[in-house]
């Protein structure tokens, strides 16, 4: 057997791989082909679409900000502070990544609805109601998005050479200064990647949002919900136009993170 024939992949694998690739590609081609390019601008600039777009941006960016504010400390604790049951805690943090989002929504309802365990206290004490509110959308999106940030940042903190922190301490820097001026800048690429992942996940959130926050235009109806509603209401061209927006955003995320995922072997 010659070396070149041994290197060629088996025909069956090539066929299967081609089918798989086509399966990914064809729906996207279909989306682009079915788009009504003539009315695209009109569909996207309608009051209805703009409201959903604006709400999606506000909610997904807020969810990303919350994920950073609470996720980075959580990642730090998981990576650095040895405590019993750490594996269990990590499991709890990662659960929303594998949990069906609609289950996440039902679980959020159980805890944060006005009659829920925490929701009742929130409402009685602060008058805050998360369900059927924009805050509820942000809560649902944070729930599903934060784990992406936590695992990315935790991984970076684990592989971080802590001797840089020793060096900073010998120079007189206190822990917060060390974190702010040494650790954080050095893990910034991972933090950015985690934030982009979390943001993309929040932007696409559907199941937990519609279950927990409902589908109220201008208040809880984000882009994916608007796509779904337009599709159900027979507004196919609008659904496709909004879908194209989300497709473009997804491609932009891939481009932004290409160095992380498409590193050439």
């Amino acid at each position, binding site marked *: 057997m010659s070396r070149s024939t041994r290197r060629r992949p088996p025909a069956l694998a090539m066929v299967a791989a081609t089918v798989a690739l086509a399966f990914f590609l064809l729906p996207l081609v279909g989306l682009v082909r079915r788009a009504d390019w003539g009315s695209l601008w009109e569909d996207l600039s309608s009051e209805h679409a703009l409201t959903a777009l604006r709400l999606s941006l506000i909610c997904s960016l807020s969810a990303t900000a919350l994920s950073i504010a609470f996720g980075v400390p959580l990642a730090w604790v998981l990576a650095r502070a040895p405590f019993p049951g750490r594996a269990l805690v990590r499991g709890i943090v990662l659960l929303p990544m594998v949990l069906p989002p609609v289950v996440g929504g039902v679980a959020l309802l159980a805890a944060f609805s006005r009659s829920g365990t925490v929701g009742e206290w929130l409402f009685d004490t602060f008058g805050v109601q998360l369900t059927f509110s924009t805050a509820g959308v942000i809560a649902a999106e944070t729930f599903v998005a934060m784990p992406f940030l936590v695992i990315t940042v935790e991984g970076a903190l684990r592989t971080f*050479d802590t*001797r*840089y922190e*020793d*060096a*900073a*301490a*010998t*120079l*007189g*820097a*206190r822990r917060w*200064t060390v974190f702010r*001026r*040494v650790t954080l*800048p*050095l893990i910034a690429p991972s933090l950015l990647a985690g934030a982009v992942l979390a943001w993309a996940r929040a932007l696409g959130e559907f199941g937990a949002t519609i279950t927990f926050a409902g589908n109220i235009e201008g208040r809880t109806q984000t882009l994916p919900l608007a796509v779904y509603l337009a599709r159900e209401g027979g507004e196919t061209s609008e659904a496709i136009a909004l879908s194209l927006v989300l497709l473009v955003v997804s491609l932009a995320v891939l481009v932004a993170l290409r160095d992380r995922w498409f590193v050439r072997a």
Partner: protein
Amino acid sequence: MLDATLGITLGEFELDASLTVRAGEVLALVGPNGAGKTTVLRAVAGLQPIDRGRMTIDGAVVDDPDAGTLVPTEQRAIGVVFQDYLLFPHLSALDNVAFGLRARGRTRLEAQASARRVLDGLGVGERADAKPADLSGGQAQRVALARALAIEPRVLLLDEPLAALDPGARDSIRRDLREHLRRFNGATVLVSHDSVDAAVLADKIVILDGGRVVQSGPVSEVLARPRSRYVADLVGVNLFEGDADGNQVHIDGGEHVVVADYVHGPVFVVIAPRAIALSNEEPHGSARNHWPTRIAGIETVGDRARVRLVGRMSFVAEVTAASVADLGLREGQEVWAIVKATEVGTTPR
């Protein structure tokens, strides 16, 4: 001044050592890998609390487990040059050096102005804006030294400061480092596994092995009179100061040594004990260095003997026990010490 008696238990490893380094003095900690050298540095830096003993810097207690005192690293008057320098890769050389001053509350402008002076003083001022990745090994070492010195520490700790450099650059950088250490007015502790580093840079030497001090004292004494075979193998070298002029080095005291390298200026001449051959008759042939000496002592360990030779040039030679018998060597005997020019090492001082 650093005064430390320290005991540390790390699993199976027990470290017990004591060191005293006065202001202006340089102490070399020498030993093989795993001897505990870096652990001692980490303890002085406060990165590794001690389990037993007591440590003071300029009289103030920084670590005393019995009294429950432990001054954290960031509050100790120390500067550390780490083995691979650990310059912050995201900061310029200038901001690396300014980091400690900023952390101590100086404004950015003040810190950068001071940092620039220190970099200039170490001859790397023109690299102030470079990122660590763009610095050569020698430049990175000086920036690391500048970063440690900028905060005006009372104790300077250097962990294998020359190990990361390629051998071609090492000699001149070692000489420069010696100048910089001479100008530093605090106490310096230097970790090395190289006796030449210790000889060139340090005043005192502490030899660690397996967590224990096996010998300590002035460098010249420890190098010339290793108390054990182990120390002899580790650091025993013949060291002379002189001025090089091409292939000759004029030794202080009037003798000269022929070397194979072409060198100029003040140097150390390094001759390994095993490089010295002994003969009862004056050798012929011009390429060889030879001196008449008298045997001051013979110490046999196993199949080898260390022979102490005194004369216009005094050496320790190491020969086989067989040649001691063949030449009939005994104390008080006159012999010729012979060294090939190619066996003589030089390093600038």
